[in-house]
């Protein structure tokens, strides 16, 4: 039995906590079992219900930033120096806060099991957003499932809250004060910034990998779903976000650090400037609390055939930068996957970063994902395409697809076929036929093999219909 205990210091709601604990203990278990704060619920232990949602406040460049997370997938090791907020930490003494009151008034709660998670997520939004927009506020609840209300009363509650409270400012400190003034937060939030600064001074050295390390945990959104019961008995290493720039560009060459999260991608000005639709693509990835934690490296190393980030990066013909104690090397992402969950990577190698190059000014890009439920679901099939057109012909194309093979697929044959051809209906139909030969989907909970074949064809068509609306006629194609 492993006894890898770590000293961890943080603030939970209004209380300072210092404890020696296995860093892989989930925050959910710790708050429910040790602190006996039972407002946070366990509904699934796989990040899919949101009943366990909590807020994490952390110092980033001396600013106090809050984000939501699924406490069932969150290791205690990550709480060092942070502010953990549970539903109990939002309660005012005698009255309900306006979020709570709106849920009561509008029928946003029935059995109540999911409710604390919703209240937490929405409070997270109020803390985070620079100005309040109804659709964004509703989207911030995309990780919370309610089986009783059908979410209709919940949406009404959100609407009412925003009707009664508006604010536009990006200064966190002012925002917190205003939220306190309007009873959304208890008084103690005033002092958290300073208290965290104080704690950060005394923080111990972070965890380092040793030969004994069995698990390397980054966001934990894969590992804790699969292995939570083993992790707490094993030696683990936690990868912490470096404080350096996570996403950079030098002369058309882009670098994304392995520990960048999906939220980091969506919010990156650099990424937004080249992929204006990035938010639309990746809002289909998990839920907000998952996106806040799920990392790029984790997505690649997990090697799931439907990894969305991997699909995206494959169509950028990205390169993986690996390193261990002694060596640094690079591998093209399309050669990184050897077979089902088998990688060109030694156990002690870490993904430091991923890079890709964009040489053409006028490239075209598209990402498609279809799943049974549009949001918070794993793709049945996903696909990305990168295109450069010169004189009406396809000068360069990278095409990827997920869910249609044991690995995330780079569609080499289809690419070679399309190269130097015109994007026209006949060519695309022939391309779809080649595509169909290149894949080998299997039937599972996400669809039959037959469906996945058909769906990929449709998504392949969707790329061209979207990118060449003047040239390609839907009726001819279908």
């Amino acid at each position: 039995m492993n006894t890898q205990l770590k000293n961890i210091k943080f603030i939970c709601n209004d209380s300072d906590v210092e404890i020696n604990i296995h860093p892989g203990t989930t925050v959910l278990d710790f708050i429910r079992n040790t602190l006996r704060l039972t407002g946070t619920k366990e509904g699934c232990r796989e990040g899919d219900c949101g009943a366990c949602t909590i807020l994490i406040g952390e110092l980033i460049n001396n600013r106090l930033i809050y984000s939501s997370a699924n406490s069932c997938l969150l290791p205690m090791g990550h709480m060092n120096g942070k502010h953990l907020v549970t539903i109990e930490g939002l309660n005012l003494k005698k009255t309900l806060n306006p979020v709570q009151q709106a849920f009561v008034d509008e029928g946003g709660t029935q059995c109540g099991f999911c409710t604390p998670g919703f209240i937490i997520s929405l409070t997270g939004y109020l803390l985070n957003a620079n100005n309040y927009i109804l659709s964004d506020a509703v989207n911030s609840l995309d990780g919370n499932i309610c089986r009783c209300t059908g979410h209709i009363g919940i949406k009404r509650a959100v609407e009412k809250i925003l009707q009664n409270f508006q604010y536009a400012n990006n200064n966190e400190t002012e925002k917190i004060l205003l939220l306190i003034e309007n009873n959304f937060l208890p008084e103690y939030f005033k002092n958290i910034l300073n208290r965290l600064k104080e704690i950060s001074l005394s923080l111990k050295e972070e965890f380092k990998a040793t030969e004994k390390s069995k698990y390397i945990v980054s966001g934990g959104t894969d590992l804790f779903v699969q292995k939570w019961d083993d992790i707490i008995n094993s030696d683990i290493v936690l990868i912490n976000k470096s404080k350096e720039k996570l996403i950079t560009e030098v002369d058309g060459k882009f670098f994304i650090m392995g520990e960048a999260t999906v939220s980091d991608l969506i919010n990156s000005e650099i990424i937004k400037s080249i992929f204006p639709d990035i938010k639309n693509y990746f809002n289909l990835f998990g839920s907000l609390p998952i996106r806040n934690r799920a990392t790029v490296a984790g997505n690649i190393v997990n090697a799931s055939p439907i990894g969305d980030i991997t699909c995206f990066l494959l169509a950028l013909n990205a390169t993986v930068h690996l390193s261990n104690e002694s060596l640094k090397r690079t591998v093209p992402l399309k050669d990184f996957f050897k077979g089902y969950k088998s990688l060109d990577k030694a156990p002690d190698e870490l993904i430091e970063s991923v890079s890709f190059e964009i040489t053409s000014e006028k490239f075209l890009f598209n990402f498609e994902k279809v799943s049974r439920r549009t949001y918070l679901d794993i793709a049945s099939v996903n696909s990305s395409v990168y295109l450069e057109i010169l004189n009406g012909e396809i000068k360069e194309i990278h095409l990827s697809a997920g869910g249609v093979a044991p690995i995330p697929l780079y569609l080499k044959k289809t690419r070679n076929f399309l190269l130097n051809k015109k994007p026209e209906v006949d060519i695309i139909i022939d391309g779809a036929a080649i595509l169909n030969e290149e894949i080998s989907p299997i039937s599972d909970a996400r669809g039959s093999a037959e469906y996945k074949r058909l769906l990929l064809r449709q998504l392949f068509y969707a790329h061209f219909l979207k990118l060449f609306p003047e040239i390609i006629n839907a009726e001819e194609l279908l």
Partner: protein
Amino acid sequence: MKNYDSYQHVRGESLFLDDLTSPEGVLHAAIFSSPIAHGLIKTIDFHEALNSSGVIAILSAKDIPGENQIGGIIPDEVLLASEKVDYIGQPIALVIADSYLNAKKASNKIKINLEKLPPIFDPREAFRNNSLIIPSRTFEIGDVERAWKSCDLIIEGTADSGGQEHLYLETQAALAYPQEGNKIKIISSTQSPTAVQRTTARILAIKMNQVEVDVTRLGGGFGGKEDQATAWAVMAALGAYKMKAPVKLVLKRNDDMRMTGKRHPYSSDFKIGLTNDLKILAYEVTFYQNAGAAADLSPAILERTLFHTTNSYFIPNVKATGISCKTNLPPNTAFRGFGGPQAMFVIESAIFKAAEKLGVDPFEIQEKNLLNEGDEFPFGQRAENCNARKTWNELKRKINFEKTKVNIRNFNQENNLIKKGFALMPICFGISFTNTLMNQANALVHIYTDGSVGISTAAVEMGQGVNHKLRQVAAELFSIDLEKVSIESTNTTRSANTSPTAASSAADLNGKALENACRIILDRIITNIARELKVDDLKRLLIKKNILLLDNKPTEFTWEKLIQKTYTDRVSLSAQAYYATPGIYFNRNINKGKAFAYHVYGTAFIETALDCLRGIYKITDVKIVHDFGKSLNPVIDKGQAEGALIQGLGWMTIEEVIYDERGKLITDTLSTYKVPDLHFTPDKVEINFLEDSENPMGIFNSKAIGEPPLMYGIGGYFAIANAIKAFKQDTNIDCKAPMTPEKVLISLYSESIKQKPLKITKES
């Protein structure tokens, strides 16, 4: 009016079972279950598991002191299998350890040797093999054989609907404590405290008065904790009884999903006959219900299917046969609607198919055949206070039906990749347990000397707001502040021999019993004070807003003073009272009777937008006119309607229970079994309360609300079907639910793939 449950929920202060402070020395249990769908147990080896760290004991069938039997309707289900297993996930042993993880780990070390038997998963195959739960049943009216001859069109077909996972957010859970005198106390997350009590007594070979079951609240039930909370509670009790220590059993989500039954999948054959003017003359249907491996509540559910064969329509000649088929899946169980939705899906499918053939819109047939006052249901009851047409017409007016139709048609003409479709969905749902004897309830009311009131009934709070409604009833009858009234936990020592909180009837039955109890006490209080005030005519005395009025003028007696006075005069401030729904009966020999106290009616309009390139859809708009009676609490009732609607839509669209060829559930997590989320929810949902609906059979003229609105969801299936047909007129809609994105895409393109196979046509 403060709803205490809601108040606590939003603060995270409501205590669900797993939130209770564990008693000292509590042990934790995990379940070892069958890895195969059908087979004989040859040997089990607990040796290694027993040596696993933290393990205290492993209990199996031979440790049961009483009868190893948990079947409620039919005694055909063991608590722990010892000889034969009938489905994957069937409990075999209970591992008890110092922590859940240790128990779980040890359960993985149990070695079992089984001899496989051939399993059956398909209900029709079970039927062919004569593998039935009960003999088939038939409800009949008129003479279908004669009627076919008068029909201008006869259509035959098949309609299938899938299972549905309850996905109550709180998983099954129980905590049992040994008590002195060989007694046991169980806190259970159950809708049926009495079933837990009765079954525990049977398993432990003790008397029912040695078992106390207590329920505070459930994190959702939806029928999934009506019969199927029992096994876990009894296992915890068995553990506590044997270990002489408290035992807690909380199922992890994937165990819960694997081990418990779901809504019954049905496969049905129908034959429908109409005249040229769209009158349905005859309808014949055979329902093959996939019951799973044991009876559970299947016979009762099958019966309700038969009761709802014709939904909101009057059909003069009907023959409906129900067959409960035994298969090697977890026993399927109650789920909101209780067999009703499955029946309604078939009649709606039959109408859809008939409309297709006749080249009319389904709503034309629907409208023509709606129930009128006095029409007879196939089981002999007549429609009373019938609001089928009223809700239909009111809805059409509300949505400006003619204009809506044109708008949708225009939209579809202008858009080639997005198509809209809509459907109208009327519902008619009978209220009462169809097993007449279950329509009884009792209530116990105490008024304490400080004037506060405590109420115990059989109603279990699981989100449907029954606690708050009961508080309203008592507060209104006593005319005191709601704050003075508190609902106690549901407990078998205070409420005995109770029916489950089910069939949408908890507020009706318990509310009426509560009304009776309150009136008894009120009567005593008034009689007593009348003597004091020397008033002969009791009608001159009235309590209003916490004050006793004499001839409508306030007296010195506040509620508190009045209670004190009653107490000092040695008059009882407690009462227990009883209610049994009057006037209902059902004769199972002839399948006729007045089975229901009343019916609930309503009509929904459902619109969808379909992305015909990707096969994905969104339910965009739902408008409903629903008959709530005189709603006791509009916020609660509207919430029930909304939640049920979305659950029904989920059942018809994205929720799909999939077992593999070995009978193993592959949708056993929330990542593979998808329920509606916030984005699924239509942007526009409008629930209108039908005006001027009175219902003397309901508490304060209200109507039951829990189940009926679920069936609006069936319209979602046909709305999507119509959108598909707007894209490709000749698509064959196979009437197999759910209508998943996969189903949609394949319907849209299966033909075109045949014509244009996905093969290389030209070499380049």
